[in-house]
């Protein structure tokens, strides 16, 4: 877990209008505020007015908008369903607690994803520390969940092959350099464009593209061209 790449802290002032990309589907530069960003601004206003109940209600909508994507990212990072679940919850709670620090110049998605990934990285670090001292004798919750998920498929051979393939892919992604992994995760599983990843990480967009390309090349090499 050494060399883990961490996105910029959430209150980094570097994110200006330049990073104003659009959330929801394919995003564009200098587009008007996306739905989620507008909602976040609205929630911030409600919190400032002290209308907490209404703010909480509106926040539920924001959660519903980003929940699935956040869960995918967190799961790919942590490979454990419960850990990912907690990481997503923590990220949302943190967002609500610090909503007064949100600026509309920042796309909400970028702001939120930073918080989420920093939380995931902290958890990864804690997990690796725990694994160093404790031997896992039981099947992990992730394995259980995957087994349940695979249970939907009737063919045992197909199930076994799928499990093996997922394990191979996970191992290959784990072998990526910290920066490559973060960029790859955000772009591939977080459905972010290189420009958005650039805004999240503070890296140059062309650097993000290079990292992505290297990550993909390494993965293809490790997986023999087939996932």
């Amino acid at each position, binding site marked *: 877990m050494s060399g883990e790449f961490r996105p910029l802290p959430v209150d980094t002032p570097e994110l200006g209008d330049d990073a104003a990309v659009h959330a929801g589907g394919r995003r564009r530069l200098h587009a008007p505020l996306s739905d989620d960003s507008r909602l976040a601004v609205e929630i911030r206003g409600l919190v400032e007015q002290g209308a907490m109940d209404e703010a909480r209600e509106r926040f539920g909508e924001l959660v519903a908008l980003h929940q699935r994507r956040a869960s995918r990212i967190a799961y790919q990072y942590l490979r454990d369903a419960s850990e990912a679940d907690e990481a997503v919850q923590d990220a949302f709670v943190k967002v609500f607690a610090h909503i007064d620090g949100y600026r509309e110049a920042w796309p909400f998605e970028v702001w939120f994803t930073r918080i989420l990934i920093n939380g995931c990285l902290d958890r990864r670090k804690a997990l690796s520390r725990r694994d160093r001292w404790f031997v896992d004798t039981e099947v992990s919750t992730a394995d259980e969940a995957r087994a349940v998920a695979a249970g939907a498929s009737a063919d045992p051979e197909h199930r076994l092959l799928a499990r093996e393939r997922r394990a191979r892919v996970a191992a290959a992604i784990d072998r990526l350099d910290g920066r490559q992994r973060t960029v790859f995760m955000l772009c591939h599983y977080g459905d972010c464009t290189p420009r958005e990843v650039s805004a999240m990480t503070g890296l140059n967009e062309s650097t993000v593209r290079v990292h992505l390309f290297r990550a993909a090349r390494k*993965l293809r090499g490790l997986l023999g061209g087939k996932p």
Partner: protein
Amino acid sequence: MKHRAHHLHDERLFDCYLTERGGDVLDPPAAEHLADCGECTARYAALSEFMETLRRDGEAEADAVFTPDRLRAQQHAIARRVEHLGRPARVISFPHRIVQRTLGVSQSRTAPRWVAAAAAAGLFVGVALGASYEWNMRRAPAASFGTRDVSSRIAPAAVRGANADDAAFLSDLELALERPHTRELQAFDALTPHVREIRDQR
């Protein structure tokens, strides 16, 4: 057939993939080349397939874990946690009536001194009576136990002698063994026959 040097570099192909995935149009030279060159088209297709399969697999795996039910539960959990945020810390006021009553009690306690004096006197009398009673009790049982014990302990062996009934003797012995001060003899008792056993043998 074009020369290999004219083929698109892997990095360029990857850029094309990213551009297409982002919903943008490929730059004209790359698009033209891909339209003309079969080899590059095949490489591009293989790259796209690899990346898409990887993504689909990952998403499917995560979606299988985070089912709609689980996501709903997650939403509820977030709502519960957010419920406590932004609310000022609640100060629980001490019930007014109890405070008044407590104050009243403490005042009435301190006011009459004779109550404290009476309590002290009562305590002294109580302790004195208790001590004298205990002293009397120690003297009386010592005398009565002495006479009774001697007769009951010695009687079976010495006084009754050969005339005593075996069953009565053994039952006396059992009674004696059940007393707390003879517990250490119970090991020896285990080695000797009991009345019940003798009766059963008969």
